[in-house]
């Protein structure tokens, strides 16, 4: 029993049809239970809608149903004989960009929707930029509401070219395009009879077959310590182990290791789990590592290999996406979380703000407001053990937290 897992997210501007598409995908692949269907049927009727509104499958909050928009990411699960899927249906509204980033941060594929009548809007571009910053390996651009443009090939090609020109300036590896109608079901699970000119795959075929390389880095050994396990029982009197989740590389029993920040070296005596010792541990396993000698090592420290070190630094260069109502403060202090380590930091420099429409670096206006993407430099109170985000999503990501309100105010990716 070995099922592959694909995590995907929706993206795109408000009302472009993301939630309807997820509803359609689940409905046409028979992944909706009878009582769930009856419940949305009843809600649609009560709202005076003629047809069953499939978006209600993910828009489950009262406020979402009242306003007809998605506010926060909804997670849905379904599987076909080929794969298991975790879907994050995210909001298009600019005010809730932070919730889109939440859903997208763990995705392998992003479905970027466009309304065929409207084409690329500012939020389409913002979401595409965020998807590229998060290094989501595959983008599928879904040109939706084709039923409203007479299923025109011309419209499809024009929008495809428009996105292609924009994506050329982004750091994305694999972009595909598909014309659909989420409302009517064209090319979602069933091949459209209205668009014989389209010869590519349906959405479900794409999702079942897109090649997913592992999310993880199996080369650079990184083990952030979560906590120290000390049973203090008769049976395990002198036991001391370091619990954590492997963030990179393959650790083996007997390996020479180096501890950060102390720089001491040791050897792996054993790798423990509740189900017994294992010979090796790799991402994303949660294990307990025992070392040969007793050393000072605690939460926030990292076990690595002596010949392959992360950068140990108090100076970070980041791309950030800013979430807070209050703008980023130059020289301001924030809490920073990186793997299991928490420190404080000072914003030393705002290098530039990214212009969402042109992708130019704006060096004049450096006020970073909610939903802006920017490049900044920080100084931290303690050294962090980082890799570039492009090399390791776990050791290359940070969040910033406001010291007074405790809100998570930014997502950061190490350059």
């Amino acid at each position, binding site marked *: 029993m070995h099922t592959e897992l694909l995590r995907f997210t929706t993206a795109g501007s408000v009302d472009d049809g993301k939630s309807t598409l997820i509803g359609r995908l689940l409905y046409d692949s028979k992944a909706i239970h009878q009582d769930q269907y009856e419940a949305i049927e009843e809600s649609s009727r009560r709202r005076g809608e003629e047809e069953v509104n499939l978006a209600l499958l993910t828009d489950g909050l009262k406020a979402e149903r009242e306003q007809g928009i998605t506010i926060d990411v909804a997670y849905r699960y379904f599987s076909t004989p080929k794969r298991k899927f975790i879907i994050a249906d995210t909001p298009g509204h600019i005010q809730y960009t932070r919730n889109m980033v939440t859903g997208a941060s763990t995705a392998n594929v992003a479905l970027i929707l466009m309304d065929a009548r409207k084409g690329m809007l500012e939020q389409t571009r913002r979401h595409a930029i965020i998807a590229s910053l998060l290094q989501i390996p595959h983008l599928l651009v879904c040109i939706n509401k084709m039923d409203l443009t007479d299923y025109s090939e011309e419209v499809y090609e024009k929008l495809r070219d428009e996105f292609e020109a924009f994506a050329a300036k982004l750091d994305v590896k694999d972009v595909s395009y598909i014309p659909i109608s989420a409302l009517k079901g064209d090319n979602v699970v069933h091949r459209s009879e209205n668009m014989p000119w389209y010869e590519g795959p349906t959405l479900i075929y794409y999702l079942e077959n897109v090649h997913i390389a592992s999310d993880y880095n199996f080369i650079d050994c990184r083990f952030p310590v*979560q906590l120290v396990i000390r049973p203090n029982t008769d049976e395990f009197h002198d036991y001391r182990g370091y619990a954590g989740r492997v963030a990179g590389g393959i650790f083996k029993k007997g390996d020479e290791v180096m501890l950060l920040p102390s720089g001491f070296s040791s050897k792996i005596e054993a790798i423990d789990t509740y189900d017994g010792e294992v010979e090796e541990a790799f991402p994303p396993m*949660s294990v307990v590592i025992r070392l040969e000698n007793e050393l000072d090592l605690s939460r926030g420290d990292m076990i690595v290999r002596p010949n392959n070190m992360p950068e140990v630094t108090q100076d970070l260069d980041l791309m950030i996406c800013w979430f807070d109502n209050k703008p980023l403060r130059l020289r301001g202090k924030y809490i920073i979380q990186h793997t299991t380590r928490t420190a404080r930091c000072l914003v030393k420099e705002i290098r530039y703000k990214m212009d969402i429409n042109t992708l130019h670096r704006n060096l004049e206006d450096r006020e970073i407001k909610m939903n802006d993407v920017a490049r900044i430099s920080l100084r931290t109170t303690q050294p962090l053990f980082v890799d570039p985000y492009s090399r390791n999503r776990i050791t290359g990501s940070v969040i910033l937290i406001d010291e007074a309100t405790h809100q998570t105010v930014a997502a950061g990716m190490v350059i």
Partner: protein
Amino acid sequence: MYQLDHLKELEAESIFVIREVAAQFENPVLMFSGGKDSILMLYLARKAFYPARLPFPLLHVDTGHNFPETIAFRDELVEKWNLRLIVASVQDAIDRGLVHEERGIHASRNGLQTAVLLEAIEKHGFDAALGGGRRDEEKARAKERFFSHRDEFGQWDPKNQRPELWNLFNAKKQVGEHFRVFPISNWTELDVWQYLHREQVPLPSLYFAHERLCIERNGVLLADSEYLQKKPEETPATYKVRFRTIGDMTCTGAVLSEADTLEKVIEEIATTRITERGARADDKRSETSMEDRKKEGYF
């Protein structure tokens, strides 16, 4: 190949989250109802800290309307694994006047649990409560974060949740606030059963097909008991049933079933057309009853 199968991957994620709770909070508690999700949580939590003991107690909000099997099973586990159990009693809260018993035919103590839970959290100073809620259970739960912030009144604000990026969990809070943490957020019902089967975890007999006296009400089979108020025309009859979720006896519906082993249960779930909460009267009270309860501080 360095790849975990999906159950191992889910297990690794949950263990990571449970350990983050132990590391980032001072006084966490594990909510335990005796149902399969609670049992899974407890099992994963033991794995997370092994060979050390579970570093936090269990909290059972006891409605007084439990299936006797649930309580017997709970006490057996507590004894066997040497756990610390705190019971917050709804009956006691009614007697003290903290909450008022609902009246009438659909009376349930389900909603009363919220006030009792919040009181227990405050009294013991818990700063994090681990719960077995899963996103695939219900549409409001589909919106939950792993680390879900609660204000000083225990309220959830679904319109203004903190962003949650990657696996970086922000546990910062003001005095008096707390967190609900959901380590098995990404498990589906089928995942839970497949895992419990693979790990040979013992389960209460209620989950397997057995003969039971039930009444049928609005298409739902409810177990007959002294707590259930019946209309005169509702006469109990014997059915072969099992339960897909276990809650209060008065609102947890049974399903007709012949599945008396884990294998058969898994087979049944893989082909069912009804969700597990489809038989729960507490969710059927209104379109947003789960969201409404959660906003007030329900599990």
